[in-house]
Structures are given as C-alpha cells and as structure tokens.
C-alpha cells in the first residue's frame, strides 16, 4: 500500500506560540486515519497547515511531492482536499452551484456531470434542494453539501475537520456511514474528530493529539480498547 500523505516533525506557530509541535503522521492509500484529542489540542491547526492555510515547519509529502511550500490552490489541484470545521460554503449560492464549484480545480471537465450525479445519488437530499441557497440548509444538509462539494474535486486524500460538530445523533451516524463508504471509492481520509468513539469505529488507524503533540498512536481497533483513552475520551470507566 503506497503512502498518500506523510508529515514529519511538523510544527505550526501562531506568532511565537507553537500550537502543533513536531507532529509526524502518515496516511496510506485507501486508509482512514483519525486524529482525536481534546478541544484546543491543535487538531484543526494541523489540518490548516496540511492544506496550506497556515505556514509550517518540517516535512510534508503528498503523493511523492513536497507540498510544504505550495499554495492551497496547488495542493487542491493535486487532489488534496479539506472540508473545514466551518464548512465554508458559498451561502448565497445554490446547492448546485456549490457542487459545481467543487469541481473547479479539475482540468478534465468531461466527467463532471457524472460525478455530480454520483454525489446526488449519495445525498438525495441535495438533489431535492439543488436550487436552494446553501445558507438556507439545515446543519446536516450543510455538512452533506460540504462533503459532496469536496467529492466533486475527486480527492485522492480528503481531510475532514469535525464533520459531526453540532449535528443530531441520527445525522452523525449517517455522516460516519458515508465517510466509511468513501473508502470504497478509493478515497483516503484524514479525519479529525472530538467524537472519539465514532472516529475510531470508522478509522483504520488513529493518533491522539494533546497540547500540540502526538502522545499515542496505533490501529484504531486497539486504541478503542485502550484503558487510558477509554477514561479520557471514550466516556468509559
């Protein structure tokens, strides 16, 4: 299995404060990797650095190319995509336009309609609301749109920042089912989540980030039974 993303000793600073320190992690092709940790641990910062919205030190290799100094747009063109915590939808624009813009980075436009149909098949609710403005959607629909829009770019690696945040439990289950099913499309996933149990149940491998540093890692099925993690993050005793 070839390596999709490899981060080595990545450090991200806000002014002089190191929000992420010497983090090393990797995502293999077709793998779902999760980063769990408490609020403020640096999970979002790590993803922002991975997509290029924040500057970082260390090494960042995506599909064999050094991407650390690349612009966000260059990374997206290489099919590295992020669904951010705030979704960043184009709220005044229709659902269909949001999805179409997801495919903006694709040079070959011949398959766009087919991908759009696939996204609509995956999220029938979006097809029903395709003419509606994105800003008028419910929380769950907005998350579906954010996911669908990212899929329009045919990502090789999809990074998801807190996809379950603020959603009802039923919707959360649906979103995680969708994430698991993306593996069948050959999409690798780097999932950052506070809902540690759902994340570890979905992922193949997991990292635990605390105060900007990786403190533990291993196969997700092992981490989910780890006593320390059960006490700290999984709500167990």
């Amino acid at each position, binding site marked *: 299995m070839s390596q999709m993303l490899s981060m080595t000793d990545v450090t991200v600073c806000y002014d002089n404060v190191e929000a992420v320190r010497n983090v090393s992690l990797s995502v293999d092709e077709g793998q779902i990797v999760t980063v769990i940790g408490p609020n403020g641990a640096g999970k979002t910062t790590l993803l922002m650095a991975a997509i290029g919205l924040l500057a970082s030190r260390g090494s960042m290799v995506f599909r064999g190319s050094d991407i650390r100094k690349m612009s966000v*747009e260059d990374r997206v*063109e290489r099919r590295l995509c992020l669904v951010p915590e*705030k979704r960043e*939808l184009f709220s005044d624009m229709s659902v269909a336009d949001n999805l*179409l*813009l997801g495919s903006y980075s694709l040079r070959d436009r011949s398959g766009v309609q087919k991908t759009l149909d696939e996204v609509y098949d995956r999220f029938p609710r979006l097809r029903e609301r395709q003419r509606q403005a994105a800003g008028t959607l419910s929380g769950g629909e907005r998350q579906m749109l954010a996911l669908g829009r990212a899929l329009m770019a045919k990502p090789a690696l999809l990074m998801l920042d807190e996809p379950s945040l603020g959603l009802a439990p039923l919707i959360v289950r649906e979103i995680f089912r969708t994430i698991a099913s993306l593996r069948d499309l050959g999409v690798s996933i780097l999932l950052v989540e506070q809902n540690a149990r759902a994340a570890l149940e979905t992922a193949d491998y997991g990292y635990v980030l605390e105060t900007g540093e990786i403190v533990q890692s291993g196969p997700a099925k092992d981490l989910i039974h780890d006593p320390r993690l059960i006490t700290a993050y999984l709500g167990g005793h």
Partner: protein
Amino acid sequence: MTSDIAAILAIDGIATGAVYALVAIGTVLIFTVTRVIFIPFGDIAAFTALTLAALDAKRFPGTGALVVALACLATLIEVISLIRNGEVRLLPRALLLYLAIPLAVVGIAWLTMRMDPPLAVRLVLALMLITPIAPLLDRIVFRPIADGTVLLLLTVSVALHFALVGLGLLFFGPEGVRTEPLTSFSTEFAGVLVSGQTMLIVLAALVFSGLLYLFFDFTLVGKSLRATAVNRTGSRLMGIRPERAGTIAYLLGSLMAGVSGILIAPVNTVFYDSGFLIGLKAFVGAIVGGMTSYPGAAIGAVGVGILESFASFQSSALKDVIVFSLLIPILIWRSLASLHSEEEIEE
C-alpha cells in the same frame, strides 16, 4: 417646473445615471472580489475618453506609454516574487501575461493607428489600451498588501487616484475634450426629443448589465468570482486563486469603466481630472446597494444621475453638494438595516 422640463431632466438623469451604473457595477465587482474600493475607476473612464480623443486627433495617446511602464514594473515584481518563492516554472506564464500581452496590445494599437482607422476601430483601440491598466496596477500596488485592512486598501486606492490624475495631466494636458457623437440619430419620446447618444448610453448599460448577469450565472469563471466574493477561504479550498479572480474582476471592471468613458465623452467635456467625480458618484450609487448588490448599485447609480440632473436645474452650483448629501441618509439607513454586521465579521 413644467412636466416637459421634468421629462427632459429625467431622461438626461437616466442617461448620466446609466454611465454611473457601469462604473458602480465595476466598483462593486472589484470590492466584493478583492475588498478594494477602487477609487481610480473614474480615472479609467476619463482616460478612455481622453485616449479616444487623442486617437481621433491622430495622436498616439500617453496611455500606451503608461501601459508599457506598468507592464515592465509588474513583470519585474512578479518575476522577483516567483524567484523568491522558488516557482521558476511559472516564469514563462508571468512573462506572457504581464509583459507580452500588454506590449502586444500597445503594439497593435500603435500599428493600427498609423492606418487611419475608422471610429469603430478607434473605440476598440481605446478600450484595448485602457483595459490592462487596472489589472497591472492590481499586481503592482494591491497584491502585495492583499491581506491588509479595507481601510489600508482604501487609503492606497485614494493615493493611486492622485498619482493617476498627475499622470493624466502629464499625458493629456489640461485641456478638456469632447469626442464626436457615436450616432446622429434622434427621436421624440413622450413629446421630448431624445438623442441617439442618450439611447445608446442606456442601451449599453442594459446590455453590459445583462452580459454580466449571464457571465456570473452561467459560466464557471463567473461563478468562481461570485464564490470568491462570498467566501474567500472557501473558494481557495476549491482551488480558485483569489489573485486570478481579482485580475478577471479588474479586467471586467476596467472594460465597463472604459465603455462608460466612451459613452460620456460626446455629451460631457472630459478633463484629465474629471474621473474623480464620476467615480465618486458611482461610489454613492454602489453604497445604495451596500457595495455588494449589482442591481442595487445600478439602481442607486441611476438614482444619483436623476438627482444630479434635477439638482443642477434647481441650483447648478450646489448639485454636487445635493448628490453627496444623499450619502448621509443612505448610510444611516444601511447601518440601521445591518445591525448584525459585527457578528458577520466575527464569523
């Protein structure tokens, strides 16, 4: 005031407002995509009129030299920036966009002018010479401070306007110009004589607004510009480059300002510094639309034109005072209507 005079003033106001509308739409376009309130848009409109007048007089306009100088400077800045960022592979593209194309435009204009071209070709030449100025200024002046505050960008924009006015005096001299009418046709409408030029102005405003609507609603590039305006971070995550969106916005905006300059030149005497008032009145119109709505800006600009027309009839000396006083109630209304704006900024 009789109804006949009111009708004449209304038609005159609509025509002037239509010119302001083109500039106002360009102003909104640039602001939403780049956050720059581009004060020199009026100067672009005035320079187009002066460029056309120079071409009519069989003189090659100073605008050509301005484009060459800006192209060289923009290329230098872009090349240094690419080398610094280790993006040497992008050098040929930069040389093509910032040097070859602008120089080719000036070269074509210079060669065509020697053949004593007809008016239609001179109009195209004037627009060709004007259109690269704003995108090149964007590369030189605004892109290095793209992340600055709106106030900083506005301050630089005002400074740029004064620099352009100085250059306008240098290139075109202090004399005003009035170009030949684009049409001698005229007709009577509701008992009032309406000139073909007035009809052309209104028609051009409608056609360009329509084209812009089609561009924004039916093309991927147009939608990418809207997306950049709505959510800059979101658009970057889709691979839309804000600087490219900015360049397209400046090109389109310049074209619209250029067209308004061509339309206004036969009806108003245009001086090197006439652009400021055109830009400022268009800006008042754009504020009516909250600096974000194209129809709002167009309606606001036509309103400004009509008000100006009636104000100049009542008191010619106070017409500008009356028009700019309009800003006060508009700003109060807009600030009351958008009490949630602080919340939006936080987001």
